[in-house]
């Protein structure tokens, strides 16, 4: 069995599982946020009316809650949702509630690794599609809707069809000007937004071993954009060190067997990778940066679970140091812990000196919700994950997806720019 199959076999109490087996997996961790949480509360209300007991959760210690999409509260409705979420965690005795304005908080997928909330080998489900991110720690991490999350909260398990696995092998390190974001965009361009549908996307090879944990998180984060059930990387010492430094104990690693089966293996040479953008209106609509359309950009956005981890900010700072931005540039660290580290290490000063605005952690602009939405006809380059019509604002706005290096270089020139071409 491969790593995903081994995790699912253990979680379902079976010796062995094979692709297409339908199992009920015991869940180790579950997350809701200020969008899926109120959605789950609504499901609970419906269940109560049907006479189903919703008085107690299966295990409140395995549940954690993030406030990320509409914080700082965008308006009255979103403020009410935060109140609802607080009442919910109080009622059900959920202690891990990361509240905006009370110390550490941030984007749910960022907290999962920053706070070592999910460990290798665990089954982790969340009420958000980018839950896949956390598979980079060697866990089975999968996004679900409100009804499914409500089911997990009450029963501690959920059904899965064991997925087929696509294996993406990266031979050798990525060049310095190329980031994990470029590599995952390359893959999505090759297999399309449906190419990973219902499947596992596993990453390996010497290039992945060389990658930081944060880069692996970027890879797994965007498996969602290829439709995948989960993204995963075999855990190694880097993962152990990363989690241990954040307070995790009792880490035990699960690995695939030597004779693990994969539906298909794709191979890439690290040295051949180039900075890429995904043009509007799909993450599969890939262009090499040097061949991208010569459009006048209105904004550069460096934020989100995909593109505002600490190393993403370091990459942006490398470009912006001693330079000035030519277009509106918004930089929002993905969690308070990252924000603080960026401040302590002088990154925020570099951003402010360059003319960028630094904002608090939020999903706001990434999903066109608030705090930096795009006007009609505005064009944005962004380190986020999706660029469907209207994703970041007006339905006639446009988003180009890129790495933080490219987004920062483009902020300086006002055009889509390869970091190697900056003067």
């Amino acid at each position, binding site marked *: 069995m491969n790593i995903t199959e081994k995790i699912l076999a253990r979680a379902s109490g079976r010796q062995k599982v094979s692709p297409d087996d339908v199992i009920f997996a015991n869940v180790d961790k579950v997350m809701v946020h200020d*969008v899926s949480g109120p959605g789950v509360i609504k499901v609970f209300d419906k269940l109560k009316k049907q006479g*189903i007991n919703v008085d107690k959760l299966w295990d409140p210690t395995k549940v954690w809650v993030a406030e990320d999409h509409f914080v700082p509260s965008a308006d009255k409705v979103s403020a009410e949702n935060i109140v609802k979420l607080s009442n919910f965690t109080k009622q059900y005795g959920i202690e891990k509630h990361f509240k905006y304005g009370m110390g550490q908080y941030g984007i749910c997928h960022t907290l999962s690794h920053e706070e070592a909330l999910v460990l290798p080998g665990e089954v982790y489900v969340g009420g958000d*599609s980018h839950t896949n991110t956390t598979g980079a720690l060697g866990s089975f991490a999968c996004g679900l809707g409100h*009804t499914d999350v409500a089911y997990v909260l009450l029963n501690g398990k959920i059904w899965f069809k064991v997925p087929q696995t696509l294996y993406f092998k990266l031979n050798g390190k990525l060049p310095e000007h190329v980031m994990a974001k470029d590599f995952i965009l390359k893959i999505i361009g090759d297999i399309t937004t449906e190419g990973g549908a219902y499947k596992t996307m596993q990453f390996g090879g010497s290039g992945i071993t060389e990658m930081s944990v944060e880069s692996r998180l970027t890879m797994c984060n965007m498996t969602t954009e290829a*439709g995948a059930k989960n993204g995963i990387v075999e855990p190694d010492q880097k993962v152990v060190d990363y989690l241990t430094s954040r307070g995790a104990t009792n880490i035990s690693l699960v690995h695939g067997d030597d004779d693990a089966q994969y539906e298909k293996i794709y191979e890439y040479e690290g040295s051949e990778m180039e900075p890429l953008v995904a043009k509007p209106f799909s993450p599969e609509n890939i262009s090499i940066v040097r061949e991208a359309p010569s459009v006048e950009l209105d904004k550069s956005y460096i934020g989100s679970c995909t593109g505002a981890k600490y190393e993403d900010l370091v990459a942006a700072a490398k470009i912006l140091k001693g330079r000035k931005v030519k277009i509106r540039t918004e930089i929002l660290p993905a969690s308070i812990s990252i924000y603080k580290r960026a401040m302590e290490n002088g990154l925020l000063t570099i951003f402010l000196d360059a003319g960028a605005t630094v904002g608090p952690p939020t999903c706001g602009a990434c999903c066109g919700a608030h705090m930096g939405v795009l006007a009609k006809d505005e064009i944005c380059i962004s380190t986020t994950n999706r660029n469907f*019509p209207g994703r970041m604002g007006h*339905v006639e706005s446009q988003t180009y997806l890129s790495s933080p290096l490219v987004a920062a270089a483009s902020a300086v020139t006002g055009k889509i720019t390869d970091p190697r071409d900056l003067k």
Partner: protein
Amino acid sequence: MKGNVIKYARDNIDTDVIIPGQYLKVHDYAELATHAMEGLDPDFHSKVKEGDFILSGRNFGCGSSREHAPIALSHSGIKAVLALSFARIFYRNAVDGAFLLPIEIDQDAYSDISEGDQIDIDIKANQINNLTKNKSYKMKPFSEIIGKIIEAGGLFKYKPD
């Protein structure tokens, strides 16, 4: 199950156009319905009728896990989405929440069925009858677990063996 077809002849209809991100804070199902398909077809709300079906191409519902998407369609009156294929979270949300039926069709049905056609979906026979054109097409049968959850009326009513 009889109804009229609203056709979107394109692939990759994503959750951002089915229900744009600004409405994710809304959990009133009737209000969500007024914004269904707003990112693609602002006239959808005025033209959709109770019992209608949506017909579309590949990868319907790709993107986010927002259950708002099947909720907005279902509370607009949509009973089933017929598509060449579905994104996984939309598919399972539709089934587990018992909001609407996601029905996989073949290229023949996709090309042949037109906007406004009246069709009858016969789940037992895995067949779609086009009453307007007097033709029939096969639909892909539901997998065993999906069939059982649909029959039970959603995941919470389903009792695993």
